[in-house]
């Protein structure tokens, strides 16, 4: 019985993850906590961090989202990483928001975001590979591979 229940729960959970994330959209006056730009003007790039109490931070690109996550005390004093319930990024081809942990990120492509060189989020590995081919990308990365030094190099246009 117990195994059946856990299997059912697992099924539910995976079922939920396959769906696009339900996140609040950025308001017209919401600014990115990292760069200070208005987010709603760049619907193709919106990334969102949702907290337990329903309050959300929006970013105008995955790069700023990762900078924020790597240094939470600096960009969002008084926020606890444990309170984060969802992290979403806008997937390139369909412009739906997906879980940032499941996305594949391409760097070094010819597609620039509002903040210059970007981590372009894609839904599947195949999407990422074709995007890399089409747009001259350099590398495909997963969520855990993205480090603070890499982001710094990305700002300077270095991808290796």
């Amino acid at each position, binding site marked *: 019985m117990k195994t059946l229940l856990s299997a059912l729960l697992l099924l539910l959970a995976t079922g939920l993850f396959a769906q696009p994330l339900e996140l609040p959209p950025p308001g017209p006056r919401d600014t990115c906590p990292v760069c200070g730009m208005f987010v709603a003007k760049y619907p*193709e790039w919106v990334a969102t961090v949702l907290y337990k109490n329903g309050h959300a931070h929006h970013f105008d690109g995955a790069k700023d989202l990762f900078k924020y996550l790597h240094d939470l005390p600096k960009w969002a004093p008084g926020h606890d990483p444990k309170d984060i319930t969802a992290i979403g990024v806008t997937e390139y*081809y369909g412009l739906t928001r997906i879980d940032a942990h499941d996305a594949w990120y391409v760097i070094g492509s010819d597609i620039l975001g509002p903040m210059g060189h970007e981590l372009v989020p894609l839904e599947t590995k195949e999407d990422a590979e074709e995007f890399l081919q089409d747009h001259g990308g350099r590398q495909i990365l997963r969520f855990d591979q993205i480090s603070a030094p890499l982001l710094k190099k990305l700002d300077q246009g270095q991808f290796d």
Partner: protein
Amino acid sequence: MKAFIRKQRYLIDFTLSSLLRRPGKNLGLLVVYSLIVFLLASVMLFTHALRSEARLVLADSPEIILQRMVAGRHDLIPGSYLEKMGRIRGVIGKHGRLWGYFYDPAVQANYTLMVPRDRQLAEDEAVIGAAIARTRGVSRGDFLTFRSTDGNAYSFRVSAILASDSELVSADLILVSEQRFRTFFGIPEGYYTDLVLNVRNPKELRKVAEKLTLRLPDTRPILRDEILRTYDAIFNWRQGIVFVLLTGTILAFVIFAWDKASGLSAEERREIGILKAIGWETSDVIRMKFWEGAIISLSAFLLGYLTAYGHVFYANAGLFEPVLKGWSVLYPEFRLTPFIDGLQLATLFFFTVFPYTVATIVPIWRAAITDPDTVMR
């Protein structure tokens, strides 16, 4: 503050009565001035309204239209191309469209016949635009009969009349069923006028178009932005032509206004001399003349702009219609939706009111600083 406003009021009062002392000259100036503003504003309002309408129309149009080309001409496209192009990343929807033009000799106008995707129509049913209903004098439940290319006459029962924000979209539109469309125009099953693709991310549009031309070499993808740019270019070009035609008039006005504003007549010099002799200060004289210029140019601007507004949006811009609308003279009559662009209004204001007011100031200042005795002599 109050004293300042009261002073300006007295000055304006004096200016108005001094303007009325020479009614013929000043009224003539006002009329010519208003006419110039009217012409310029009409062209600006009209082209801006057309451009806004085009933008409104294209807002809902698909991101990419794919046409098949045969010997450089647009041809029917087989529905199988939808599978032939395969799955292209970034494309979230694709389908074939059926539409075409039909010339109605009864009212000498072109209609657009189209098969709608969002509603199912019975075979003899048709939904028509408001302008067609007006020109043909039909309403719901009436029949419209057209002769098709194979010589047979087909009757359509009008089941509804389209309502839309923009009459330009729906004015000449007739929605018919797919089956009737194919028999009426003789288009075989499985063929479409063109294919449309929906792409969510505008950044991916160019890549999708590139892949399309590689996979289907006999087709031509048309991006929505390109259509918009073309419209913009056409309207800008037409606006330019009208402006060129108007240059002569504008130049004549500039000379006239310059002469009126800058050359002071002996009578005006005398007036200034008397004012100074009875104790007016130079600054008061300049202020008085500033109000004179401002009153004339402001009222001419308002008058001209308002008549232009009426001309474009109520009288259908009768003066420029043939030049600005182009091919659409073969079009059922339609009304434009009023659009006003703040920046355009400001530009027109700056180029008409501002120079005139400034041009009046300098000679007055020169006359006002000379000794009243020399001026009056």
